[in-house]
């Protein structure tokens, strides 16, 4: 009688599903993943959470009888599904044989990986035609165990497969399954037939404070260049107008020019599902004699979790055709905070390449007298943009690959 009363959170939706053979009806927030739902709402704590991005396998449960990551399925999308957690496998024949074999072969030490390991192992026992060590190891590659070294686990799984095949139990081929993601059923009511409501908008956040450090050694550098059908002097002159140049970079905005040669602004980026706004400051120096310039800036994302420093050095030189110019850019950036440990410079180059091409096209149009593009902005663009993108992309990618 001591169970805490659970408040129905704002924005919760109704979901009805079957968990370990019992019907469950609940109110869940759409953002609650299945592992949190079974652990927190149903007190089924046998489902473990390690990475929460699909890599470690600790959260693996059965969805409609097939293994799935409980950390990557949202409970509200599992209406009508049959969920089986490790607690629901107590009376399962294959799981029983595996438990005995795990015990015999010392296939666990701390046990953290074991619930997910058993769910994946059970799937292999059902599907693999024979006890082939290579296929067993491949099949277990999505379940990380930091204790055992896998030898006992592999042996245990192989022994159960061999035993069952020797008893004449044939492997399953899944031919009868319906197409599509396991656990996804139409007709559970969520969001169906409702009037389309406006999605909630994120509240505006205050600007972030960053400090521009003139002297830093960038961790990553790369070069880009583009040509314009405009004389070098005109191009170099255009670079002096911060707002105009910023207007050529998609997503960039200038908020203020607090002092000569200093600009405050930011960049909105949207890459796939990643949408972020980075804000910061930059200092700009120019040398007309050599038609070179340097923009050095620092920025942080609005959530303040990551910060970056960057610099862009540019040089405008005559192009091959008379009256044309080539702009050479050298971009350097460094990341600080939790994101700094990951890096994937190639991806940044691809994105930088596309931004540069758009920037060049807009700049060309502007120099040729065309009206400014509808939306765009700041000069420090590349420093802010690239550092930010690098950080975010590299981070989730590195996490995804477990690298």
């Amino acid at each position, binding site marked *: 009688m001591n169970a805490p009363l659970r408040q129905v959170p*704002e924005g919760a939706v109704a979901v009805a599903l079957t968990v370990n053979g019992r019907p469950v009806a609940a109110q869940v927030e*759409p*953002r609650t*993943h299945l592992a*949190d739902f079974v652990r927190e709402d149903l007190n089924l704590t046998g489902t473990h959470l390690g990475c*929460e*991005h*699909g890599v470690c*396998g600790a959260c*693996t449960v059965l*969805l409609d009888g*097939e293994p*799935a*990551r409980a*950390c*990557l399925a*949202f409970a*509200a*999308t599992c209406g009508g599904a049959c969920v089986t957690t490790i607690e629901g496998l107590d009376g399962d024949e294959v799981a029983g044989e595996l438990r005995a074999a795990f015990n015999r072969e010392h296939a666990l030490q701390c046990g953290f990986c074991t619930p997910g390991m058993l769910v*994946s192992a059970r799937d292999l026992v059902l599907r693999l035609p024979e006890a082939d060590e290579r296929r067993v190891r491949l099949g277990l*590659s*999505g*379940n990380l165990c930091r204790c055992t070294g896998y030898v006992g686990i592999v042996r245990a799984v192989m022994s159960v497969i061999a035993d069952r095949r020797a008893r004449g139990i044939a492997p399953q081929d*899944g031919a009868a*399954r319906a*197409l*599509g*993601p*396991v*656990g*996804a*059923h*139409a007709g*559970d009511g*969520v*969001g169906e037939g409702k009037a*389309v*409501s*406006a*999605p*909630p908008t994120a509240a505006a956040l205050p600007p972030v404070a960053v400090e521009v450090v003139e002297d830093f050694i960038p961790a990553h550098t790369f070069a880009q260049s583009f040509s314009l059908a405009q004389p070098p002097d005109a191009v170099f002159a255009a670079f002096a107008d911060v707002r105009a140049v910023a207007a050529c970079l998609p997503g960039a905005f200038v908020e203020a020019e607090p002092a000569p040669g200093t600009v405050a602004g930011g960049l909105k980026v949207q*890459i*796939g*599902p*990643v*949408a972020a706004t980075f804000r910061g400051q930059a200092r700009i120096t120019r040398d007309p004699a050599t038609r070179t310039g340097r923009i050095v800036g620092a920025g942080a994302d609005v959530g303040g979790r990551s910060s970056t420093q960057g610099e862009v050095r540019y040089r405008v030189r005559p192009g091959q055709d008379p009256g044309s110019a080539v702009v050479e850019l050298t971009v350097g950036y460094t990341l600080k905070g939790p994101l700094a440990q990951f890096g*994937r410079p*190639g*991806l940044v*180059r*691809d*994105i930088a*390449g*596309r931004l540069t091409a758009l920037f060049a096209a807009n700049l060309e149009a502007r120099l040729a007298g065309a009206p400014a593009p509808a939306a765009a902005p700041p000069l420090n663009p590349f420093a802010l943009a690239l550092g930010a993108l690098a950080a*975010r992309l590299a981070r*989730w*990618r590195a*996490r*995804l690959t*477990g690298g």
Partner: protein
Amino acid sequence: MKPAPFALERPRTTADALAFLAAGGRVMAGGQSLGPMLNLRLAAPGRVVDVSAADLRTAAREGETLVLGACVTHADIEDGRIAQAAGPVLAALLARVAGGIAYRAVRNRGTIGGSLCHADPAADWVNALSALDASVEIATPSGSRRLPLGDFLTGALATALGPDELLAAVRIPQPAATAGFGYVKHCRKVGEFAHAIGAALIDPARGAARLVMGALERPPLLIADARALFGGAVDADFAARFDPEPADAALQAAGIADPVSRHVHVEVLRRAVMQAAGLQAGRAAA
């Protein structure tokens, strides 16, 4: 770890999904790429439109073309549940690619459409389907349009898809009966994204070779007419005449400056070519 709050819609039909998208929202299919980004709060959409239970779970055949609904999963392809529509040859080579993606628990929910829309340069369908000359069918508010995969994939993690559009289906032409297919994925750990991908569709009977080098942090590098890599002509003993130089030059032209990286990509391509020639059983997709 909790994603930022979002509203959820679960349309049953493509038309309903488009109506939700018109008012703003991010599509979710299997959630195997979007889920991690939500959990890590790299993505924080106000609304998620979950299409996993919509009418995109289909496999059909139109003439010589296999048409897979966007929500067909990697496991569906791995297990051959599309074999009737695909025919045995195409079903087998797609199954080989599918089986090498991630892990079974991910393959049971991750979809072919989600993989293409996510457009990770190192993703398996992005590269394998480029070699197979696939195209995509996009549902738009005003109807539908088709794009060759090469036009759909506009950059690393970027596609030609508008925010109010949905990938409806993937169209994969039946390879010629005389063609060989090779697919080699190079990675350090089984089930992870590749560090280099080579894919080859080679038909000596027609003298045609279509080669792809992938996982280059940019869209797949497609050599649609690869005769130059075989001394100018593709014939019965093409494998013996594979010339790495033009492949290396193509990588250099694409801005891959690191010679070690180029070497790895060319070697992985060579192995795919050997596989297409039937010379190397090779672990296609791990």
